[in-house]
């Protein structure tokens, strides 16, 4: 078997159903092996067992693989050529690292003899990717290829998941090898640490300590992050909440980890969190952080985060996250699902039931008084109303991806999220251009689901070439562009912190006709919505269309994202805008330049 065939064989053994990638000289042997594998193993209906989806740009392939991984929980696979193919993959690899998304990326590399010679399409991928992936292998010994590719899958999905890059020189792809069918690299250090974390259990003493604090608390709160989703712990969280009654607020990455329509759900917290979630964080006296890392969009000022909390507990799979930002009173490093199941069983067995009636009433009152709201009387189309209208159809059951900016925050705030893996967003890196390719990847993972990309007019431009990918593969994707004629989020910061000098964030001179662009790429349903009174009927028609559909909505260009906890501000200083009730007189934002971001 050739090295290239070995790679495809391992990928098939790993159960991969679809791959994403773009061809080129240094990866041709692998592409040929994929072609032959699919021809030889064609299904009865003629379909390919491992279709290879081709994007317009490798960045698209990377985000498709990431969207596939986010929507399915499986490892996303991308295959690209050396040099520019591999460097185009850097952004999705870094994005996936920052959001803990499992990927395996196979890159072609120039032949081993040419490495270091500034060969055609050579780039130092192990150096570049080593700085931003979970791990990178440069395979120089062909006999290690099979074990290396198999190990890449184990690394990507184990512990805290992440992207793993395998750089394969062309001569290694062409080497004659025998396929063993089993065996991985030793990686003694990684595996020993992984074993320790995976086997960690909560002792009785740990449970006693946590419940002692919980039973004394009057206003305990769960702060749930993306770890709940990565660890498949949503059901265990549900059971824990049913047993002990703690309200739950989720991070951007945690949306879907707890049913947002539940009375105890406080939805999003942080910089653009709901006012009621942020006030609950201000008021709580106990925090249980689950797979959440107190990042700067949540705890912008760590010392002022949850200022009344007498006890902070943290569970995470990554020991480096414990106390990284905020020191905690109790912690556990281990699999979240098992930890929650153990705590629930312990608390139930000891009949521990916090008496939280007053706190529940307080939370309900916060949700009522400080509900999300906007200018419902405006003649201009309000973006919030667009999301609400889509939400009435989707009801928390659609998969939603986004670009980055205001539209992303509106989607996070105004959609319901009822189950994990329905919300795909570039949380930590905040990469514009994520939405469209991620939605494509998600549709490959969930063929029968409604998948909606809520995008911005600037974000979608970044990977607009992937519009054609949607129609090439006949995906019934629904794409919404909330067009505010510019980089709305940038404008919002310029309004607040740069005296309204809109440097390079206005796109009123841009000429693109998005509807024509979509039509040119084969969208039969492509429309522009410009009038409020057509909103409901247009959305209904759009979502009912049986096939790819593209909707551009001309929204109020001045619509802002509220609430907002400005950089360097505490939750108590949150600005809630004109339509959401604030608890305190908001402090006027500093109109001076800021070093915060």
């Amino acid at each position, binding site marked *: 078997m050739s090295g290239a065939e070995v790679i495809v064989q391992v990928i098939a053994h790993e159960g991969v159903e679809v791959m994403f990638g773009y061809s080129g000289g240094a990866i041709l042997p692998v592409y040929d092996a994929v072609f032959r594998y699919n021809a030889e193993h064609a299904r009865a209906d003629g379909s390919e067992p491992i279709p290879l989806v081709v994007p317009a740009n490798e960045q698209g392939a990377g985000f498709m693989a990431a969207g596939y991984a986010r929507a399915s929980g499986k490892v996303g696979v991308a295959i690209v050529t050396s040099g520019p193919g591999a460097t185009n993959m850097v952004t999705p690899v870094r994005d996936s690292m920052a959001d803990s998304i499992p990927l395996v990326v196979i890159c072609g590399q120039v032949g081993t003899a040419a490495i270091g010679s500034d060969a055609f399409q050579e780039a130092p991928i192990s*150096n570049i990717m080593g700085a931003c992936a979970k*791990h*990178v292998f*440069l395979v120089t010994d062909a006999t290690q290829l099979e074990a290396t590719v198999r190990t890449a899958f184990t690394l990507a999905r184990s512990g805290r998941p992440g992207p793993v890059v395998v750089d394969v020189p062309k001569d290694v792809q062409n080497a004659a090898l025998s396929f063993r069918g089993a065996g991985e690299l030793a*990686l*003694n*250090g*990684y595996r020993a640490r992984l074993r320790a974390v995976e086997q960690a259990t909560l002792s009785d003493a740990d449970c006693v300590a946590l419940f002692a604090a919980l039973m004394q608390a009057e206003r305990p709160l769960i702060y749930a992050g993306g770890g709940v989703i990565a660890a498949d712990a949503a059901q265990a969280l549900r059971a824990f909440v049913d047993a002990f009654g703690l309200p739950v607020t989720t991070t951007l990455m945690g949306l879907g980890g707890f049913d947002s329509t539940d009375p105890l759900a406080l939805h999003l917290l942080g910089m653009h969190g709901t006012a009621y979630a942020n006030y609950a964080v201000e008021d709580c006296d106990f925090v249980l952080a689950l797979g959440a890392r107190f990042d700067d969009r949540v705890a912008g000022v760590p010392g002022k985060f949850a200022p009344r909390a007498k006890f902070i507990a943290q569970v995470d799979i990554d*020991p*480096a996250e414990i106390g990284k930002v905020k020191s905690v009173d109790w912690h556990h490093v281990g699999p979240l699902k098992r930890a929650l199941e153990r705590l629930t069983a312990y608390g139930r067995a000891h009949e521990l039931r916090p008496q939280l009636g007053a706190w529940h009433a307080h939370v309900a009152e916060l949700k009522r008084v400080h509900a999300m709201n906007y200018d419902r009387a405006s003649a201009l189309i309000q973006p919030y109303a667009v999301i609400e209208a889509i939400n009435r159809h989707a009801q928390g059951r659609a998969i939603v991806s986004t670009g980055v900016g205001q539209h992303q925050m509106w989607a996070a705030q105004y959609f319901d999220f009822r189950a994990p893996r329905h919300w795909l967003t570039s949380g930590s890196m905040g990469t514009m251009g994520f939405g469209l390719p991620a939605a494509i990847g998600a549709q490959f993972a969930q063929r029968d689901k409604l998948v909606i990309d809520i995008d911005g007019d600037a974000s979608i431009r970044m990977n607009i070439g992937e519009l054609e990918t949607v129609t090439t593969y006949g995906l019934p994707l629904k794409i919404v562009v909330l067009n505010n004629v510019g980089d709305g989020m940038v404008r919002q910061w310029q309004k607040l912190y740069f005296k309204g000098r809109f440097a390079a964030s206005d796109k009123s001179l841009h000429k693109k006709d998005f509807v024509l662009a979509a039509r040119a790429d084969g969208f039969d349903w492509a429309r522009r919505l410009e009038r409020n009174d057509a909103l409901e009927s247009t959305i209904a028609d759009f979502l009912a269309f049986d096939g790819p559909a593209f909707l551009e909505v001309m929204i109020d260009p001045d619509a802002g994202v509220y609430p907002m906890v400005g950089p360097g501000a505490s939750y108590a200083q949150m600005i809630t805008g004109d339509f959401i009730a604030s608890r305190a007189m908001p402090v006027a934002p500093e109109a001076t330049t800021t070093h915060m971001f």
Partner: protein
Amino acid sequence: MNHTLSILLQNEAGALVRVAGLFAARGYNIDTLTVAATHDPAVSRLTLSLQCDDDALGQILQQTRKLVDVLQVAHPANALAA
């Protein structure tokens, strides 16, 4: 404050770069660095020293332990060694 760390590393191409890169990316300058063979040819021992707040030391040790080719990280002068 000056700290000396002792790291056991798989002797593989790129492993040293990843350790050095981690420190650089997190804002630390490595003052001294020695790489030596061990009795196991697959393992090398890295001894490095850097200036780092005592408070921040635990975090950089934990981050170093996340590198896949790192076998062990110790801080011989300090109880943080593990």
